[in-house]
């Protein structure tokens, strides 16, 4: 009787295992929640995975809401790569298979930056939202980006053990490039320690922490003219925080840039790379970001 119990349990186990592991030849279907993860996964997996990021190019993946059909596509994927740190608010209200979810930032979840305040603001037709809770642009600390890339590689290997060497080689190449950017940014931070900077949006917390930037944020949109209250808020901040540069997620409107210049503030773009760029790839965007940031030196 005991023997037969063990046998049945083993059969059940192997059946369960078979359902988890797919055929080794098919490319993996991977769904992600932002462009950064799409870039990392594509780099590591190469042709062995189809990495899908279904948010429209002009949307903010943090606040984008997929349709039910798109959620179903996510459900059918072999792997769903999450950024963690509260990234992609739609995840809270969606049903996804836990077995396929990978929180790529889990390794450093104890170092998430908590943000307070009740500040809400609006992004045009998509309605108002607030940046409270946890800072989520984790990869702008490039050491953290490396950990996220490693988490992706580890998960890909677990799905396709036969491709371990390929994946690890690709990861190695990616890590080197990320490390290069990391050291360049470290250099910038070291050259101007404590220099006050403004950010148009509170998305650079990890960048500031890792590279020692003295950053304060407003909540301005590059394509919308700031209101008088927002200008007044900025002036108020500048009293204690005499910044000469404002970091934008994308190119600001000319009028805003000019008015900032009148306040003695120059604009530079540091695109977080959350969505697919107009041209080039994620690494091009980051290299350009580094070059842009060098202007503060």
């Amino acid at each position, binding site marked *: 009787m005991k023997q037969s*119990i063990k046998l049945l*349990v083993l059969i059940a186990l192997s*059946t369960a295992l078979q359902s*988890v592991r797919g055929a080794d030849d098919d490319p993996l279907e991977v769904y992600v929640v932002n462009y950064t993860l799409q870039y990392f996964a594509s780099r590591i997996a190469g042709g062995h995975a189809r990495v899908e990021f279904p948010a429209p190019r002009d949307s903010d993946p943090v606040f984008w809401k997929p349709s039910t059909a798109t959620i*179903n596509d996510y459900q059918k994927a072999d792997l769903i790569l999450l950024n963690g740190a509260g990234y992609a608010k739609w995840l*809270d209200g*969606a049903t996804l298979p836990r077995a396929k979810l990978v929180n790529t930032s889990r390794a450093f979840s104890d170092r998430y930056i908590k943000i307070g305040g009740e500040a809400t603001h609006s992004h045009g037709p998509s309605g108002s939202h607030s940046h409270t809770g946890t800072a989520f642009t984790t990869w702008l600390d490039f050491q953290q980006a490396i950990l996220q890339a490693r988490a992706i590689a580890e998960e890909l290997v677990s799905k396709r053990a036969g491709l371990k060497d390929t994946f690890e080689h690709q990861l190695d190449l990616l890590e080197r490039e990320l490390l290069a950017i990391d050291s360049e940014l470290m250099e910038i931070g070291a050259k101007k320690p404590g220099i006050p900077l403004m950010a148009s949006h509170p998305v650079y917390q990890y960048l500031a922490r890792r590279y020692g930037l003295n950053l304060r944020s407003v909540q301005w949109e590059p394509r919308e003219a700031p209101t008088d209250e927002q200008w007044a808020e900025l002036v108020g901040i500048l009293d204690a925080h005499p910044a000469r540069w404002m970091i934008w997620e994308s190119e600001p409107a000319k009028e805003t840039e000019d008015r900032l210049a009148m306040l003695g503030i120059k604009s530079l773009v540091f695109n977080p790379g959350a969505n697919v760029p107009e041209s080039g790839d994620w690494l091009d965007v980051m290299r350009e970001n580094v070059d842009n940031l060098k202007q503060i030196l």
Partner: protein
Amino acid sequence: MSDSLYLAWRYIGFNRWKTLTLMACITLITVLPLTLQVLLSETERQMLARAASTPLVVGAGGSALDLMMSTLYFGRDVPELIDMSDSEEIWKTGLADAIPLYVRFRARDYPIVGTTLDYFDFRGLGFAAGRPLAVLGECVLGAEAARRLELKPGDSLVSSPDNLFDLAGVYPLKMSVAGVLKRTYSADDLAVFVDLKTAWIIEGLGHGHGDVARDGDTSVVLERSEDNVVANASLVEYTEITKANIDSFHFHGEPENYPISAVIALPHDAKSAAILRGRFLESLVTAQIVVPFEVIGALMQNIFRIKNVLDAVIVVVGLATVLAIALVFALSLRLRQREIETIFKLGCQRATIAHLLAAEIILILFASGVLCVGILLIVDHYSADLVRLIFVN
């Protein structure tokens, strides 16, 4: 023999009530043990198949059987609860996949099973209509639940309040039906599956309402301090999750402290299973890790022990019935004494009387046999449902 059968046929037709009583006796005494056998076999099949396909279950300490009845068959008794963190702990070990289950609430008497999508893959549940759960507030119905509730994708179903006197205000949640599962002849057929988060909303751990901090309506505000706003009971909580209000739904506290009733653990291999069991034995006093097949196997052994007693009772009752039937035939023979004398006088052979009686017995046995087979076919056809009715509900 055909003449004897004809005469017997006319005789039993003429004495139809006596015949029907005899048939009922014979049928009952035959059908009872066989029905019991069919139902027990089906019970064993259902319970053991489900137990065997569920490698390990983690739940709160206490009755392992209660835990099994809730986790495998969605029984009415709610076992002691554990935290969602226990499920995450299992994931973190890397030894097994973990499928949390929260079986506590009901919707029109059908168990609401809060779980993750992995459960559907694990049980191999396919869709007869609609699609899997996608967003909060949706439910997927088992085939039988959908049939009985006459619901299809697009319809809605309201969760039943925990109890009538629940003053804490667990609002019934109107859930929209996303899909209906294919029939599996298991407890899944009767379940209402929801996302764990939806189950927590039913419990009141998560809810959606207008923003009291920002909205202009001050009538709902009891107290406003710098960092907190206390609303009074007139603040309307949403009782249905829609596209328009889904963003207002939020949870208070840490989700990992939220309750679940059990975790189904799917170890990656036999070694992982052993290690996982070992770890639980060592470290967790309040929780238990159980091999369902062992628990249900023991239960089935007990049931079969009871069945042996029942079998003995049935044998005795059967004997008594056979004696009673023999008596009925003997009395019938006596009543027909005059008839027998007459046909003797007319000149029939001795064997003819035996033929006539044999024909009568054969006809009655045959009719009872057909009735038995009919009843057993019906029992067999509905055995899966009957067993669920008896053991699951």
